[in-house]
């Protein structure tokens, strides 16, 4: 097992290289090979026909966020502020309120994420002790016509469903 030093060879001193044309023809043969292969069968072209063909999104992909719910539809988040603290971009703004249905002490009254500030690092998901926030919506393209609609609130976050079922998510992501 060794790490050795290799002195790079300097090409260009042979006659065939100096007359330009010979190597140029060899290079032209390489490009013609590509052209011929693509012409004969143009499904070999390295093209993704977006937006008709979307890229593959795996469960681990950090897309847009969503807040998860219990089976009965109530929000899982307990407003512990861990995601807000752990976010390097400080893009989550939570306001806590009292929870009435007894599942926990607190519930988020306001949960805003500024998607333009977000750096899509996934630290909020990592920090959450309740598995309440996830980034598995599969939305990889966050676009809008104005700034206001990119500032999502708790209703939008609760409304979006995940793009994967629980088993896939556990295997790939969480």
């Amino acid at each position, binding site marked *: 097992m060794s790490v050795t030093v290799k002195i790079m060879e300097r090409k260009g001193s042979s006659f065939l290289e100096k007359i330009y*044309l010979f190597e*140029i023809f060899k*290079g*032209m043969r*390489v*490009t*013609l090979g*590509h*052209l011929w292969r*693509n*012409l004969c*069968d*143009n*499904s*070999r*072209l*390295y*093209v993704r*026909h977006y937006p*008709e*063909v979307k890229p593959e999104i795996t469960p681990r992909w950090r897309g847009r966020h969503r807040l998860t719910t219990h089976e009965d539809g109530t929000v899982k988040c307990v407003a512990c502020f861990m995601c807000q603290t752990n976010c390097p971009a400080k893009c989550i703004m939570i306001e806590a309120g009292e929870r009435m249905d007894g599942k926990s002490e607190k519930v988020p009254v306001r949960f805003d994420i500024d998607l333009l500030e977000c750096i899509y690092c996934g630290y909020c998901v990592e920090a959450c002790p309740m598995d309440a926030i996830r980034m598995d919506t599969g939305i990889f393209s966050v676009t809008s016509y104005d700034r206001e609609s990119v500032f999502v609130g708790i209703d939008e976050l609760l409304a979006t469903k995940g793009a994967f079922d629980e088993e896939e998510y556990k295997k790939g992501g969480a």
Partner: protein
Amino acid sequence: MSQLDILLVLLRVAVGAFVPLCFIAVLVWLERRGAAFFQDRAGPNRANIFGFRAAGLVQNAADGIKLIFKEDVIPGHSAHKFYFVLAPLIVFFCALVSFAVVPFADTLVLEGKQYIMQGIPMDLGILWFLAITGFAVYGIILAGWSSHNKYGVLGALRASAQVISYEIPMGLALVSLLVVYGTINLNEIVHFQGKLLFGFIPMWGVVLQPLAAVIFIVSAFAETNRTPFDLAEGESELVAGFHVEYSAMKFALFFMGEYVAMFVSSSIIITLFFGGYQIPWLSTETLVAYAKPVSMLLMGLVPVAAALFCGWMMKNNKSHYDRPNDPRVREAKVYRIIIWMMVVVVEAVLVGYLLYAAGGAADRILVVLLQIVTFLVKTFMMCFVYVWVRWTLPRFRYDQLQLLGWKMLLPLALLNIFITSAVVVALS
């Protein structure tokens, strides 16, 4: 002048003026699609009219419309606005006019009169082309200077030095060709190339004068500012070089002028070196004499070619992903119908010719048409070589380009003249 005279004059001017213009569209398409296929990608494939993409040809229309509607900018700080507007006109005009001497078919003999098949039937031949191409560089210099922009000035300087440097090897390569052919008239040069060497090799320029061919082709690349000699407009160095301040239609004129120049250079190259409009081994007289067998052969070949093309098209012209009511499949089916209809028309014309008009003027017209098609096919293939070289090679640096022109091509061209003259004198 009789009606026939007027008709033929109009026809020749039309071909001489409009074929290059139509070829611009084909060349732009070839460049973009060819580049894409060399690089494993698709090229323009979205612009369509009611779902008909024509493999990207419709993109030319889209580009044209866009360029017409773009804002036309004339730099306010330039003191020479007249030259700013004049420059692309010079480039475009010179490129277009230099096609006038290229013969796209052999001399047509109708009712006893000879009609030279060139845009302008004069016998200046190759001298016209040399003179006019040299003039086009004024456009580039004026463009760079009047842009009042350092990048433009640098681009203009580079272009002017480059064109001047490469005119000389081009001319000298031609001299040795002229020694061999003995004439400057391009039509006679093509006739000369119809003769056979050792009984079976057509005496094409590239066979008789390979070194001159190489020098001329390299110089032609340099004259038209195509990679590897495109440092006048080197995108990554001088942003856009001499046309950095141009937008909309004036930029389009430069762009089109470059493609016309490429087309004309290709046609000159094939006329001088690859037999021009001639089908190898079949001179005009042979074709006229055997007009009937030739047309029967055509009747057989055209459907075969159409069948092969349709097979390839049906296999490839579909969306390679799940797409309901695939418009590309529908498009391919429509094209197949159109192609077969065209085949039927061609066959009908040929049958009509065979039954009613064999012998006489129709023979010659058929031969002329065949020669025009050969000419266009050969020019297209040479243009493809231009595109192929562009997407394979990196570009030269300014001083290395000068070195190549003056220190390598010029002595080689002179050497070639000496050797050719010696051989010609010895053989005669």
